[in-house]
């Protein structure tokens, strides 16, 4: 009788295990896809924002090279610092533990640079999509 019960329990475990393995493969597939989709959207947002700051800073850095205004050196220093921060920032690595912290610092620096350049960081008010606010 005990053997019979053991047999039943074992069979139940075996069937559960078979189902589990199949489910595990299916679930991994679904989880991977769902995770990838969410990750891609988050990463895209980050890439867009960081890229925008970088393009903006590099372009202004070039534009200011030609001017001889003494105030420019201060602006250039701020731009250098922003560019340096961005280039050191592993924006594409979601496992970087200071991702959010560093992003906030870069945002702050960007705002500072904008005010030095006398540009409102959200100056394209008419077009939400292309404005520099994130």
């Amino acid at each position: 009788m005990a053997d019979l019960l053991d047999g039943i329990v074992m069979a139940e475990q075996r069937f559960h295990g078979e189902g589990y393995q199949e489910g595990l493969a299916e679930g991994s597939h679904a989880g991977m896809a769902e995770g990838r989709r969410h990750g891609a959207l988050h990463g895209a947002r980050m890439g867009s924002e960081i890229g925008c700051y970088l393009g903006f800073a590099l372009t202004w850095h070039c534009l200011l090279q030609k001017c001889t205004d003494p105030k420019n050196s201060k602006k250039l220093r701020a731009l250098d610092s922003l560019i340096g921060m961005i280039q050191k920032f592993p924006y594409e690595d979601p496992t970087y533990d200071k991702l959010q912290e560093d992003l906030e610092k870069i945002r702050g620096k960007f705002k500072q640079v904008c005010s030095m350049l006398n540009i409102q960081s959200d100056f394209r008010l008419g077009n939400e999509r292309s404005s520099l606010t994130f």
Partner: protein
Amino acid sequence: MSWVQVAVSQSSEDIFDEDADEMYLLQKEWNSTMKKRLKEGYRDGIEAGKELALQTGFNQGYRHGAELMITCGQFKGTLNALLSWCHFNGHDSALSMINNLLDVVGKHEDDVLKYLNSTEEQPHLGHILDSVQDMDLNHTAGTEYREVKDGKHNDCGSSSGENICRNSGEVGSLQSECSKANLCTDPEKSTLAWVKMQTVWLVEQLGLSLDVLHHVQQLEH
């Protein structure tokens, strides 16, 4: 003694039939219990597998999305810098062109987001769990996903191709150098290639320094 034989044979037949019924019922119960275990296991497995893979998938997708969009962002930032510079320096005639280019980049960004959202799209876990109820575990779901996915991918590809043609139509006079057919062959890259070409042209027209030109030229698309 014939009645005894009859009685015995009848009773043994009866007994036999009862056994058969009982065996049948037991068999049925056994089968349904094991089927239940199989389904329970399947459901547990799906949840465990999903949990295991979500983070890995997220990390992979994040990297992919970030690397795909950084260039878009760089064009946006570059154009915004040029916009503010033109604004300060009285090049008002260039403002509308820059705004147009920013719109094209913005639309392209939306298309990339839509593409990211649709290519990775899969049936929701709930749908899979629901379908477990009435499936016989001889599932072809995997291949169906792939077909659906490919279908969506193609749809997305063709629609973004159209969008890009439409985009470039809006800035019509500026795109004469750029063949339309070329724009549509690789929708991911050609929009930005076109924006880059327009930006280079603009930088030259504005007589900006070579530094600016080089910066725009090294933007990858």
